[in-house]
C-alpha cells in the first residue's frame, strides 16, 4: 500500500517531466495554452491568470534573465539580480501574453529537433500554418534534472532572449541595472494590450 501511494505520488510530482521528448513537452504546452486560454470562453481575467501559470511553469525565467543580462549579471549584487528578475518576469509575461493573443487558430506542426550549443539543450522546430506562408517558431528547451523548461523562443529568426539581451545592453551603456529594473517595472505597470 505504501509502495502504491509512493508510485502515485511520484507520478503526480513528475507530471511535468512525464513528457517523453522535448517536442512532446512543447506540444502539450501549446495545446494546453490554445485550448484553455486562447480558445477558451472564460473571462479575460481568468484566462490571463491561466496563461501566467503556464508561462511561469514552462519557462525557466531565472536562466533566461541571467542570459539576457550576460556580463551585467556577473557584476550585479544579489539584490539587484532579484529586482531585475521580478521586473523582467512581469514585463516578459505581459508582452508575451500579448503576442500569443495574435494567434487566430492556425495549426502548429512540429517538424524535428536539432542540437543546440550548451548542455542538455535542444531546439524544437515548429511551424504555425499561416497563409500564405508558414511562420517558423523554434523553442529552445533545456533538460534540467529531468525536467523540461523553455529557455528561448525564436519567431521567424528573432530570438526572444537575444533581443532582450541586445536591447538591455544598449540601455545599460549609460544607465545602471537598478535603473533598468525600475524602468521595466514602470513599463509593465502601464502595459496595455493594443493588439487588434
Amino acid at each position, binding site marked *: 500500500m505504501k509502495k502504491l501511494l509512493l508510485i502515485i505520488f511520484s507520478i503526480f510530482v513528475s507530471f511535468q517531466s512525464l513528457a517523453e521528448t522535448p517536442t512532446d513537452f512543447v506540444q502539450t504546452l501549446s495545446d494546453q495554452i490554445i485550448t484553455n486560454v486562447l480558445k477558451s470562453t472564460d473571462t479575460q481575467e481568468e484566462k490571463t491568470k491561466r496563461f501566467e501559470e503556464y508561462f511561469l511553469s514552462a519557462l525557466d525565467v531565472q*536562466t533566461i534573465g*541571467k*542570459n539576457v543580462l*550576460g*556580463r551585467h549579471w556577473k557584476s550585479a549584487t544579489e539584490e539587484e539580480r532579484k529586482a531585475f528578475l521580478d521586473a523582467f518576469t512581469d*514585463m516578459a509575461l*505581459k*508582452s508575451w501574453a*500579448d503576442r500569443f493573443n495574435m494567434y487566430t487558430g492556425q495549426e502548429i506542426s512540429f517538424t524535428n529537433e536539432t542540437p*543546440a*550549443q*550548451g*548542455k542538455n*539543450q535542444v*531546439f524544437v522546430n515548429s511551424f504555425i500554418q499561416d*497563409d*500564405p*506562408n508558414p511562420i*517558423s517558431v*523554434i523553442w*529552445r528547451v*533545456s533538460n*534540467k534534472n529531468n525536467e523540461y523548461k523553455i*529557455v*528561448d523562443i*525564436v519567431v*521567424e*529568426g*528573432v*530570438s526572444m*532572449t*537575444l*533581443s532582450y539581451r*541586445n*536591447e*538591455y*545592453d*544598449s*540601455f545599460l*551603456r549609460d544607465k545602471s541595472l537598478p535603473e*533598468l529594473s525600475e*524602468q*521595466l517595472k514602470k*513599463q509593465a505597470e*502601464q*502595459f*496595455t494590450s*493594443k*493588439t*487588434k
Partner: protein
Amino acid sequence: MKIQHKLFTLSFLILTACATKPTDSDALSAYQQANDPLEPMNRVSFAFNDNLNQFVFRPFDKVYRWIFPEPVRTGVHNFSTNLSQPCYLVNALLQGDFKDGAQIFGRFFTNSTLGIGGLFDVATDLGIEAPKKDFGQTLYTWGVKESGPYLVLPVLGPSNVRDATGTVADFFIDPVDWSLPKAEKHLLLYRYAIMGVDKIDSTSDLLWNLKQSSVDPYAALRTMYQQNRKKVLEEDTENTSDTTPAPADYDFDFEE
C-alpha cells in the same frame, strides 16, 4: 561646385555623427555585433519615424479602419501585394531561382485574372507559395554577404547599406513602373499611395507595441530587424548553395 560643397557638408555630418567605439572588450563585442557605427544619426531618423507613426500614421490608420470594413482592407492588401509580384519575379530571375520565379509568376497570373486584378488572393487558396524577392537578396546571392552598417531610413524604417541600395534598385527595376506609358505615369502615385496605406495598416500597431514593451525601442527594433533579415537571406540561399550554413544567430552560448 555647389554639389561638391553639399557633399562635403554631408560627409562631415555623417563623420561627426559616428558612434564612439567602446574600449572595454565586452562592450566592444556588443558594439561590433550591433554593426551600427552611425547610431547617433540613425537615432534621429528613428525618432522622426516614431513621431510620424504616433502623430500621423496611427491616427490615419484608426480613421482608415473606421471607414473601411475588413474585407475592403484585405482587398487593398491583396491588390498592393499583387502589384509587387512583377518586381519579385525580376529579382527571382536575377537570382537564378526559377522555382520561386515560377511560383511568383503563377501567383501574379492567377490573382490578376481569377482574383480580379489582384483584389482576391486566389493563389493562396490554390496553395501557391508567396516568396518575396527584393534586390537586397539579389545582391546577397551575387556575393554581397556583408550587410554594411545598420541604417534607419526616414519613413521606410530599418535597413542597412546593402539592403537600402537594394530598395533603390527595386524602385528602378520594377516592371509595373516602367511598363506604364508616359501619359499614364500619374497612376503610379495611386499605386504608391495604396502601398503606403497597406504598409501603415500592417505595421503601425506593431511599432506601437514594440515601443510599449521596450526600454530602448531603437535597440529592440535594430536587433529584431537584423536577426529576421539574416534568417530571410540565409534560408533563401539554403537550397541553392552547397556550403554548410553557419550556425544560426539564435544558437548562442546559453549558460545554465
